[in-house]
């Protein structure tokens, strides 16, 4: 009898694997419906499933309305699980149940009711067997979290495409942002064909006064009229980024939108039609120039400042002891150390 149950169980397993996708949730009806168990014998079927569960080929779950349900486990995984101690298996199941979002160590403890030292041992051995891995959660950087080794952490855990190992990948962001800015700017300005360019038109630039004088060789850019339809949409930008090959992973539109918003806050892009399309502030040449300048002298690019105003120029604007300054005081306009160098610098003598 026992042998036949094992055989029948194995048949049932094969039939399940053949007829359903691997993550299908099986209810009793599904299993009976396969026609493997003779005469719809419910107790027999339950015996079979119990055998499979014991062999770690089935996972027992509670389905809707507290009905019993099962999921199949692939044979390789089952082999792995068979070798685990009961405690380990318990821990493994808990971790498995949380899927891609991972689980905090303390949560495992409360769910399994294992002692901390046992839990630690289990986790260690599971990690050693490369069944589970620890992950960084951006939201709770201090928590130790685990998930199955084969899974990729979800965006909630990683914080989206811009995080590498739970830390913002600034270089990656900057390179993608730079690429986007340039791409968008190429589509936001009308480039005057070089043939017609009477010198009286002033070259349009974004912020700085650098490129105000159009040299004969330089390209000229004109703004498009209001209501122009050709500005790039989020979809277009996403496609361009993914095609460009600067990203190792495919970026979703949400990630790109996130970056586009950041660029808007950086005063580089302007969102139009409530964020559907974007246009750039600077024209392509200026963008290129600005990006070329970045890696060089960092403090040399004063041109990149918005435009300077009275307060940023005057020595008082940067004075660290401005608050203390009073005529006749310890810090006073008469004894100020900043004015002379400033005057000298400004006047050049």
């Amino acid at each position, binding site marked *: 009898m026992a042998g036949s149950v094992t055989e029948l169980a194995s048949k049932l397993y094969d039939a399940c694997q053949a007829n359903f996708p691997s993550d299908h949730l099986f209810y009793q009806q599904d299993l009976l419906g396969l026609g493997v168990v003779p005469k719809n014998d419910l107790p027999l079927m339950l015996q079979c499933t119990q055998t499979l569960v014991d062999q770690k080929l089935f996972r027992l779950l509670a389905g809707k309305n507290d009905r019993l349900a099962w999921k199949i486990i692939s044979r390789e995984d089952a082999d792995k699980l068979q070798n685990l101690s009961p405690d380990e298996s318990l821990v493994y199941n808990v971790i498995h149940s949380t899927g891609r979002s991972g689980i905090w160590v303390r949560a495992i403890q409360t769910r399994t009711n294992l002692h901390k030292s046992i839990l630690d041992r289990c986790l260690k051995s599971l990690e050693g067997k490369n069944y589970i891995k620890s992950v960084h959660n951006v939201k709770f950087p201090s928590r130790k979290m685990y998930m199955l080794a084969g899974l990729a952490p979800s965006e909630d855990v990683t*914080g989206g495409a811009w995080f590498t190992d739970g830390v913002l990948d600034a270089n990656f962001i900057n390179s993608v942002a730079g690429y986007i800015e340039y791409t968008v700017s190429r589509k936001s300005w009308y480039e005057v064909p070089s043939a017609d360019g009477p010198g009286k038109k002033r070259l349009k630039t974004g912020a700085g006064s650098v490129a105000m004088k159009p040299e004969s060789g330089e390209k000229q850019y004109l703004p498009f009229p209001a209501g122009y339809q050709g500005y790039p949409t989020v979809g277009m930008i996403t496609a361009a980024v993914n095609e460009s090959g600067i990203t190792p992973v495919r970026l979703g539109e949400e990630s790109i939108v996130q970056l586009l918003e*950041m660029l808007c806050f*950086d005063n580089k892009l302007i969102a139009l039609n409530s964020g559907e399309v974007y246009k750039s502030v600077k024209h392509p040449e200026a963008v290129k120039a600005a990006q070329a300048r970045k890696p060089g002298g960092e403090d040399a690019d004063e041109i*990149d400042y918005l435009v300077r*105003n009275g307060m940023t120029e005057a020595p008082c604007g940067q004075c660290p002891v401005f608050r203390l300054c009073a005529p006749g005081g310890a810090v006073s306009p008469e004894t100020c150390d900043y004015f002379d160098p400033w005057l000298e610098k400004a006047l050049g003598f």
Partner: protein
Amino acid sequence: MTSQNYAELCTLLVEDSFGELFGRIFATLERYDRLNLPRLKFYSRLTDRQLHHGLAAMIQQNLVFHYTSYDDGVTYYEANQHAAYYLTRSGKILEFIEGRLGQYAATLMSAIMYLGHASVSHLETLPELRPEQPHRNGINGEHKYKHEHEHEQDEANGEHEDQPNGIDSEHALSEQPYLLHPTLKTLAAHGYILRAREAHFQSYTDTVLDAERVVTSRPDIKSMKGKRLEETVIEKTLEIVKEKTDGDLSHGLKYNGVPRGAKQGRGAAQSNDPIKTEQADVDEDDEEDEDENEWSDNELGNDTVPMESSLIVRVNYEKLDVALRHCRFIGLAEQDSSAVTAEVYESLLRRIEYQTPRCRDTVEIPREGEEGEQYSVPIPLSAIAEDVDQQLDLSGSIGPMDISQPFSRRGKRPLEDGVNGTSNEGTNGLSSGSSRTYELDQHLCLLAQPPHNLTSKRIVGGLITWTVEYRYVARILRHLELEKMIEARYGDVALRVVRVLHAKGKLDEKRLQEISLLPFKDLRQVLASMQTGGYVDLQEVPRDAQRQPSRTIFLWFYDPDRVASGVLEDVYKAMSRCLQRLKFERSRLREFLEKTERSDVKGNEEQYLSEGELKMLEQWKAKEALLFGEVSRLDNMVAVFRDY
């Protein structure tokens, strides 16, 4: 309202412009506020003579308000900080007037400013307003010299308003009173000068209180009660105040909403295109050299009546602020659109300026988020079309509406090759006149685009009109100034953070990081340093009554109002420091400077000073100019934070 820094600055300005006596009186009045003469004398420790002289002159300059109370008959004096502050803006105003209305108007304006207020008859006698201006070139200039000699003989009398030959010959325009009066009228028509009223010499509060007293003593008001009484009193008071302070001279001097003498086209800067839309037919050929003559010419036919010589005029700073604010708006437009667009914008703003008496109706700048929308008067598109320089190339500075070609083949696009701009737009099937209007509309649409939304379109009675949302643009200017400071002080990362906070409101660190995409370390550093500087702040929201830090949510926020008011104080202080430093630098070089100011040396520096001294003088002048320039740049910020 008054802060220590502001008071200090005002005193310095008064002292710098008018000397120590004024400074002393002004400082005393600022420190003790309202004083009667004996008290003032006591505190300022000046002699009667000095005090009387000083006060009289300061009242003339409008630096001191005076008010004689009805109750006890005592006259009280009060410092007029506003007037004192505007001393620093005078240079800017004169520059503006010169650009707009020519050198002569600027000279006239400076004379009025210098005098505080002046009667027309007095202005007539002023030597600097007499005809020998070497800067006025062209035909008239030569003729002027001829007339000059006659004048000098007459001028002992000081009064000659209408020389008969002034009307006969065209070139007699150059005659002094004739030039003075049209210029005065032009200034009046633009609203840059006002009739001085008695109420201008007492503080606004006094005027209001007086008016209130008058109102409440009226029998029909006395019979009212409760809330109705309050409302009526406020309303009537405002009426009386308005009537008392109103010195508008522009009435009857405007023609179709354009002040007489307003130059069409671009003014002196582009003197080779003097377009006169009002009289579009006449004499473009022989007038090319002198823009300033246009209006004199225009008026020759229709108005030769001089200004009433007993009229007393003063400068209308409120109106000038409007004009200066428009200059800033144009600067904003220039920053991110083409020069042509900016010019179109200027035409629109000028039209608006004529109908805008002041920057805002409330005394204080309203709090962010609480200020309503305040649109300027709508200007019909056709009026702008009239004003914009006819030769301005409108089409050349906007790209085509549709690029059918993909961008990979750009540069080979045949669209504009050989075809000039006008025919490009001509595809719309519009006649050239209306296509120009259409192009103009396109430029204005461009300005209406985000992020600045410098204009907005309205359809009034089927006509396309354009307006400017003042509060919004003023707010943009304000934010821009703050952002400039933040960027300069804390770097572009800080700028991003601030802009995020401003757009999204209060955020906790995590959310802030997600939006700004900055690593925690950088973010915290920059937030902390900005908090120390007072630019952002932290709000604690405890989750329970214990207020433990671990159970508390911390929200970062950026309050532009708060920051701006702090920065404004800093700006005042920085202005004071520049002036004080200047004083100090002057004292360092006192002996040398005294030498250069000796009456025999002055004007003959080359002869009396050694080479080293000349160099030193040059350096000193540059230094002085730099410091004054800095003060004026700081004043630009004050204007943005306080006046616009």
